[in-house]
């Protein structure tokens, strides 16, 4: 070291000794403690391949989940679509499709009830039609209700 780089203070001779010390045997045990620390960190640290596989697996699971949700959403929309909505594929009504889509919504009881209702409705319609027919006949032939009763009860 050059003279100009020395600490030049009158009466000050600190030298180059440090005022520090270490515990006894410190440098004998330090390498072993570091090796132990390295072994512990290596044991807990996953290998690079595993990290990549883990990352890839999670992305794959996410993609599969997303695809499943997309398919579910599509079919949900497709099945809940109103039947009278015009179909873009064909202008005519596709009865086979309607039946195939609707068939699952019916069970036997629903079917019987529908037939029963239909029969009741048919009977009602028939009775109404008969009533109108008789009314027209009466009007045209100028037959009163009393006469009609007479006719009915000979």
């Amino acid at each position: 070291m050059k003279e100009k780089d020395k600490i030049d203070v009158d009466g000050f001779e600190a030298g180059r000794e440090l005022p520090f010390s270490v515990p006894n045997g410190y440098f004998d045990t330090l390498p072993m403690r570091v090796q132990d620390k390295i072994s512990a960190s290596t044991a807990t640290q996953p290998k690079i391949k595993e990290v990549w596989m883990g990352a890839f697996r999670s992305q794959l699971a996410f993609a599969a989940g997303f695809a499943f949700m997309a398919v579910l959403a599509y079919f949900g929309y497709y099945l809940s679509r109103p039947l009278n909505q015009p179909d873009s594929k064909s202008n005519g009504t596709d009865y086979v499709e309607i039946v195939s889509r609707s068939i699952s919504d019916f069970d036997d009881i629903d079917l019987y009830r529908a037939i029963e209702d239909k029969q009741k409705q048919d009977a009602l319609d028939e009775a109404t039609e008969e009533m109108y027919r008789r009314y027209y006949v009466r009007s045209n032939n100028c037959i009163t209700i009393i006469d009609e009763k007479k006719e009915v009860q000979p």
Partner: protein
Amino acid sequence: MNSYSDKELLDMFRNSETKNYAFNLLMRKYQERLYWHIRKIVISHDDTDDVIQNTFMKVWGGLEFFREDSQLFTWLYRIATNEALTFLKKKKTKLFLPLGDVEQQLCRSLESDAYVDGSELQLRLQRAILKLPEKQRVVFNMKYFDEMKYEDMSEVLGTSVGALKASFHHAVKKIEKYIEED
């Protein structure tokens, strides 16, 4: 133990069968120099122990990729210096300390640490050194105590030789002033 050259140690480290043994030898070869270098920066023995362990952990992780463009010991010094300065920075952040308070805390370590046992003159010098800015302190320590060449210091600190010479010169002047005032 110290008969192995750096080149031989590196070759042994790259062989998976002798890797642990080579690293053990490397630690034994450089631990004292690195310890005292770190100790001069962080002062307390316990803090130095933490920092040197972290330094060797980093060396273990990076030695495989060491390209031998620089000397091994300058590369080790660089890691140790970075670890020590990062440690002080973390301490500052952790304790919400302004710059001056860190210096005061290091001075307190100088007085209270169980492993500080020097003469009054040596302690006065250390107190004066602690008043320097961190990087200037590192430059002063490397030159004054370790008597390192400016070229090697330049490799460690990534600073030009001229700037290092100027920094050391200013550090000496400041220390003389601090000692006179003390």
